[in-house]
């Protein structure tokens, strides 16, 4: 005999255990597996764990694109609703969960940036394209450098920082970044490697 209600409680157990152990010995990967399984089964507790784990980072990415505290808050909520609703599109065989969510957050913010309402509201007249070009250096600096992050990005040399901005925060592809910065593909790779190495020293 099959008891659906009973099995629903069983599903929650690993989520509950994992929420107790966010900072304990349970490895990142194991915790992530439990969260993915929980969300696939429609468990909102799993979504809460995901939010606790990645909410701040995704909000940071959105904020660096949109540069508005209130709008970032709204877009963060929108991003998590999208993550929940489109979770069946996530395929762990094609990439990392973090990378997948990063794309959703960036696209949500860039879509907002594109919308005429937002452009009019912000009165950004120079913004002809959705993704600001790096050669519009001034605008870009203003958008990405603001309170809080300055201290971290300051540790990076400008040529490293611009690669991080494009590839990580704005979601440029490897080749797009190389084209935009007018540097070889290999240089993009070595610069992002150096940038992350530099940051690691600060974080750890």
């Amino acid at each position, binding site marked *: 005999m099959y008891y659906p209600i009973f099995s629903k409680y069983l599903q929650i157990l690993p989520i509950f255990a994992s929420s107790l152990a966010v900072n304990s010995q349970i490895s990142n990967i194991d915790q992530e597996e439990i969260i993915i399984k929980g969300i696939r089964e429609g468990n909102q507790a799993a979504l809460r764990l995901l*939010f606790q784990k990645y*909410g701040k980072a995704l909000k*940071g990415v959105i904020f660096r694109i949109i540069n508005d505290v209130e709008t970032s808050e709204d877009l963060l909520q929108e991003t998590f609703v999208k993550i929940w609703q489109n979770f069946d599109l996530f395929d762990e065989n094609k990439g990392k969960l973090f990378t997948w969510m990063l794309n959703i957050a960036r696209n949500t913010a860039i879509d907002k940036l594109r919308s005429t309402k937002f452009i009019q509201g912000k009165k950004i007249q120079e913004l002809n394209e959705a993704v600001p070009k790096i050669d519009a250096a001034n605008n870009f600096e203003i958008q990405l450098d603001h*309170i809080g992050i300055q201290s971290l990005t300051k540790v990076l040399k400008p040529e490293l920082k611009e690669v991080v901005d494009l590839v990580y925060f704005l979601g440029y592809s490897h080749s797009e*970044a190389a084209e935009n910065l007018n540097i070889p593909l290999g240089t993009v790779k070595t610069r992002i490697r150096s940038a992350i190495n530099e940051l690691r020293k600060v974080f750890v």
Partner: protein
Amino acid sequence: MKPEDYILSGILELYVCGALKNEECLEVQLMAKQHPEIQIEIDKIEQSLKKLAESGQTLHEHTFENIIDQVNESEHIADNNKIIPLHPFHDQQRRRYISLMVAAVALFLLASVSNVYFFNHWKNSEKSLIALKVEDDKTHKAYLETQQKLNSMQDELASYKSKDLMVVMLHPMKKNMDYKAIALYNPKMKSIQLKVMNLPTAPQGMQYQLWAIKDGKATDAGMITEINKMETMKSIPNSDSFAITMEKAGGSSEPTMASMLLMGKIEI
């Protein structure tokens, strides 16, 4: 490529940022499966990038509640659009029973109606069959009668046609009487046909009798039951002449000579 060189190349950072093409992603995943140190490095890069993005950010308590509210609201709308019946299985089963019941009742009614119809039909058939039988009996009787008549007529006709047939006229014994009789005698067949004409009806208790006379000896040849009609009489092997007398009803063994009315001689 050695795992160390692969790590140093910077491709893993691009992978975590989502800046690689699909085929390059597959290559990184393959390498990560083969070399655990690459997988560890990928996780470290993710942590660093996460921390970089997190810097300077704070999460509000209500943010997640808002997310859940939005999720529930959209799911509520989706659910409403679906309209799931409360007891789908139960309803389905009941609907099946109802349809079976309707079919059974319909079948029963149809059977009842056709029973009544066929019963009436059968009764009518029975009636007409009886009527037909009666009719048939009548027809059969009539046929038999006709057949009998035909047979006797054929017999008569045959006897008339026969070469051996002798016509014997019987004449009245008293003069001036217009009654007479004709006897058709066939000695081979020993048969006698007799027709008496104009003879008055015998009085009550009396009957006319035919006699065959051979060498002066009279033999009873049968009673005459009807006047003006050809009658078949008794078989007589030999006879010279015929005579008719009036006798008491039922006939006599010896003729009453005094009451002899008609007589005829066979002429050869």
